[in-house]
């Protein structure tokens, strides 16, 4: 009873799924036990979700579908397909915001070069970004700029100011600098 009350009140994310253009898993994160029984069950779900959605045009605006008693918002960038899965009672618009946080922060981190190859090459960044957006199903941060700067470990203290204050190219330059610093260490 209590648990029900909670899930009724908290906007919760059930899963984040990132697939490639053939429906193969790039990375996923499931937050509920619904799919916990087996990897097979998860991949079946991903496959049928992909078949269901791959022909839709989810490029400009995020699309949405009711599937298998879940509400799923999704967006495709190049050959990377992003999905957010939630319960059918969930606020679709809040979920769309989570999706936007995921796609936009990925885009910032990969310098607008979102494609399967670059996502895989920088999968560590994407994983940390996902972790900064949703923590155990609870929405942790939805501001893509915030997420991106947290992933690149630039808090307020390191003198760069917040990312949103800079132009995008400045942001990239400083991010790169920041990185090479880490790399060279």
């Amino acid at each position, binding site marked *: 009873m*209590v*648990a*029900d*009350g909670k899930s*009724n*009140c*908290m*906007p919760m994310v059930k899963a984040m799924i990132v697939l490639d253009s053939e429906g193969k*898993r790039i*990375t*996923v*994160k499931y937050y509920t036990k619904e799919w916990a029984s087996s*990897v097979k069950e*998860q*991949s079946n779900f991903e496959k049928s979700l992909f078949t*269901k959605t791959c022909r839709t045009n989810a490029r400009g*605006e*995020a*699309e*949405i*579908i*009711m599937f298998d008693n879940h509400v799923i*918002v999704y967006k495709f960038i190049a050959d990377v397909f992003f999905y957010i899965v939630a319960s059918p009672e969930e*606020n*679709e*618009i809040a979920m*769309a*915001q989570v999706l936007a946080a995921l796609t936009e922060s990925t885009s910032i981190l*990969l*310098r607008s*070069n979102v494609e399967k*190859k*670059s996502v*895989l*090459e*920088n*999968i*560590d*960044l994407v*994983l940390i970004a996902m*972790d900064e957006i949703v*923590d155990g199903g*609870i*929405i*942790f*941060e*939805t501001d893509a700029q915030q997420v991106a700067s947290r992933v690149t*470990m630039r*808090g*307020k*203290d390191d003198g760069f100011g917040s990312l949103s204050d800079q132009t995008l190219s400045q942001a990239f330059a400083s*991010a*790169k*600098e920041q*990185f*090479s610093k*880490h*790399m*060279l*260490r």
Partner: protein
Amino acid sequence: MASNAQDNNAPLRMEGKKEEEDEEDYEYSPFHGIEKGAVLQEARIFHNPQIDARKCQQVLTRLLYLSTQGETFTKTEATEVFFSITKLFQNNDSNLRRLVYLMIRELPPDSDEVIIVTNMLMKDMASNNELYKSGSIRVLCRILDSSLLQQVERYFKQAIVDKAPVVASAALVSGIHILKENSDIVKRWGSEVQDAVQSRNPMVQFHSVALMYMLKNNDRLAISKLVSSLTRGNVRSPLAQCLIVRCVAQVIADSQVYAGQERPFYDFLESCLRHKGEMVIFEAAKAIIELNNVTEAELAPAITILQLFLSSSKPVLRFAAVRILNRVAIEHPMAVSNCNIDMETLISDQNRSIATLAITTLLKTGNESSIDRLMKQMSSFMSEIGDEFKIVVVDAVHKLCLKFPSKFRSMMSFLSSILREEGGFEYKKAIVNAILGIVRTVTESKETALTHLCEFIEDCEFTYLSTQILHLLGEEGPRTSHPAKYIRYIYNRVILENATVRAAAVSSLANFGMKVPALKERVRTLLKRTLFDNDDEVRDRAAVYLKLLNKQEEESKTPQVLRGKNISLSGLEQSLREYLATPMMETFDIATVPEKELAPVVNMAKSKDTSGPAALDELTLKSDFEETLSSIPEFADLGPLYKSCEPMDLVEKETEYTITCIKHIFGSHIVFQFNMTNTIEEQVLEDVSVQVDLAEAEDYQEVCTIPATKLPYGVVAQTYVLFSYPEGTMPFGRMVASLNFVVKEIDPSTGDEEEEGFEDEYPLEDIYLSPQDFIHATKISNFRNKWEELDPETEIADEYGIGVRDSLQDAVEAVVETLGLAACEGTEAVPPNARSHVCLLHGKAVGGMEALARVNFGIDRNMEVAIKLTVRAANADMSEALHAIVAEG
């Protein structure tokens, strides 16, 4: 700097993975061909005294990648990885540290290993780096048990009020996670959480509001206080605002609202409709729509806002709006009809989910004039959507047809056209069911429907559907104007189909032969041919029916087997068992099997009918009954009337006689009052009484019968039967009843009745008695006190599955009605979206014996409802009787 030379368009980090770029085909992946064993080998470098941060990051990334691909690690592997990872805390590379955090959460250590990392994480928690702080908090909350948590609790409390949002959020979210198992600890954080609510950061505000709400979730008063303070305060975060809207909705649902009274917090919800965040607007609109007994006036602003969403460029907004409007349309079609124009545009929406929802909404809100147009628009639309959407549409068309039966033609032709198209079993089944449903209620549609169905079985790949349709043809076909035309379709099945369908077709054919004398010879010829079928069942059926046809000719009356469909299966089983117990010297007589109670065909036309005899309804007032009954000398000393049950019909509507039965319960007696109407103008009935067989109601003794002397056409007359039963019990009983009377014909020309009448008997539906008849549904205000008052010894608890229900509300209503008790303290209303519910019920039986029931409902994802019934009553017998009601029902 080295990085300046790099291509500006390249992703942030290209270096490092170069060695794997040997085969750069389109299948390129840096993880191509990696393998768990090898990566675990690589993980040994974590032990190196000189940590190579870059190399370690790569290995950790591969481990994480493997894990997200569904690779599992054995206990030993996990432990080994965990121990080696702990070494990496010595290095201060921040990216490496983040991956370490992720990895520990991915492979949570055993409780005895936790202590190894605790110190290092604690150090990170105390560091100056806010991202270390945040990360370590989130790891700690997952791996610490309650005793260790108590030791670090102080740091969590500090973190909640940390000025860095990322730290505060981490601590708050961790609190939410910890709450599930260690609520005592989190409860002590109240004041810090309260401070965090004032934070200027939207996410911190959101998380603190969430935690605050959960801390007080079990205390209604505290929640209501919290909500009223939050609704007044200025909350910046849209997510937090959504949360507050949900809490408000919960508070409204929990509070009792009486008619005419202003709903608390409605103003707040309405003000949220003007919020600048779409998320909040939508949440508020949804909350308003889901209010219990929402009025049209309350709905209006929410619907106006949603209407704007319908024309948004964002599919998510359109979907959200149309989905919620679709839900409103069920109960308030008028309120949604303003949006019809926008909805019609959405039929061509690229997103098929939106289009389907729009269509089904239109089908709910549509008026009679728009149906033809809608059907036309849909025909083209149907081929573009998936089966599961089509089923939704078919159901909606079915409902619409029941609403506007006069438009059955266009809807029937729509259904039959989609029936001919490609589709899976579930979809075809839905269509056939819809057609059958329409046939059942809209009689004019029968012939058209049968023709369509005949064509469908010509080319139907689904045995189940074919047999169902053949059965219907056998039932309905003979009663149409041209029964002969169906014979060909049916006989084709006998030639072309599999054995199951052939058998069904044979039965169907036989039905025509028996019911339509003109076709008998032809059917007989056809049946003779099937005697050589290679399937046993088909041959057997053909032989039986041929014999019956011949017999029918001899006796020139309908053979008994035709009555078979009205026989109750449980009754047949019982009779057969009894028969087997006898020496079986005589042949089994099927006539002894009780007839089945006719399945209540729920349809709109009929429910309207029942409200017809208003005069009768008025009679149901208890005081009137009391007066009427006490005026009858036989009933004068029965004592006070305790309860009169709802009238129940004992015959089908529109038969020769209308008879309803009202059960009057007295202390140790029951009176059955039968209200009878004679609907045949040329007849008058005399000496009318109801004869009741008590074989299956042994606890009851018949005391006397008071017949009605005369029942002329169109007049309501009463006859009574009085029974006694042991005082203080509530026995079950089923009584087979029949109406006995003397019929006298009336000469239509003179209006005089003939002198000589003849005795006749008319079978009635069985009358059931169950404990609920003895119990008055009475509401009490303080359920808990009453519960404590009753002897705990009488408590009986048991669990029952009650099958699939449309909603929890539906299930609650059904159970409350079955038990015949009254729901107390407003527990009959289920909050929207609840997955479980507790209903408190109370009732009083004859002699003031009280019964209380607590029913816990739970519904799962497949809409299966299970209940746990806990009963306390004046005595254990009564508790048992209540359980028996559920068990029997």
